[in-house]
């Protein structure tokens, strides 16, 4: 449970960093109660479109690694 919460927070922070606060707030609701794989898939989808494949991968890998610590 703690791990999911960490990933959700990290994912929302990443969205806030690139898409701003208002988009992050919408995703806070969207990610609520969702399993890790759904969060990662959604995050990957919007990040690849916005920052490109390489940057998306490095940013998502970073938060996954940090969240699993």
């Amino acid at each position, binding site marked *: 449970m703690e791990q999911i919460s960490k990933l959700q927070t990290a994912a929302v922070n990443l969205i806030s960093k690139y898409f701003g606060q208002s988009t992050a707030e919408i995703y806070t*609701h969207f990610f609520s109660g969702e399993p890790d794989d759904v969060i990662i898939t959604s995050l990957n989808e919007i990040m690849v479109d*916005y920052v*490109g494949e*390489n*940057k998306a991968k490095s940013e998502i890998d970073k938060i996954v690694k940090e969240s699993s610590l």
Partner: protein
Amino acid sequence: MKIVIRPNFIILMAVFLVLLAIYVISPSIRIPQIQAFSLIFSIVASLVGIYTSRIYGFKSTIGRSFILITGGLICWSVAEIIWYVSDKLIEGGATSPSMADIFFLLAYPFFGAGIYYGFTMAKIKLKQVNQSLLVIVLTASLILTYLVVYFILFKAYDSTAEPIANIVNIGYGLGDLVMIILSLMTILVAREYKGGKLASFWKAIALGFLLVLIADIVYAIYGQQFLDDMKPYTYIDLLWIAGYLLPVYGMLENYLHVSGVQKKIKLKLQQRG
């Protein structure tokens, strides 16, 4: 490689071609309607900037970056308004130095801060940047630096002019040197987001800055012919206008993308109930 031409880009090109046609057909650019083009597009750029910044907000780094760059565009708008109004109200036209120059120069710290935020956010690792790209960009930067120093900075100081006039003229030269550094930074940021929508914003800013720089250099060489309303020197104006149109394109593309993401996810939330 698949090339996608965006509708906004087609609109931007159409606007630019109409402007080009007007400049080619019109016997003079010293008529209020044509002189108002820079003013109008600077205001459009500021408004689109404000609109786009709102969607990001000031709390996020990207929001700060957009707001500060918009701040620079607003300074240029204010400068254009002051210049246009004083040119129409003062007998003999607008003079320099004036308050307009102050606002033109004030834009540089805003652009600098905005691009600094964008640059630090991108966390660029220079070792990972394509070395050929780095060589091309650095060579172009050195050539531009030489041209700015030779044609703008060296000519900026006039021992017979008022100190404030010298400060303003040197300020423009230094501002152009800052713009070279900022263009270099924006190209690297755009490269970092290769394949993503965010890259289009940084590419548009980089190209806009480069066109303004080229316009400033050409104006420094052929300024008298421009002031004498001679063609093709009057077309320099189009480069400055393109310097406003490109940020409009970059910001609009990002606004539409982020608002599209928001709409899509709101729809999914509604479907979920």
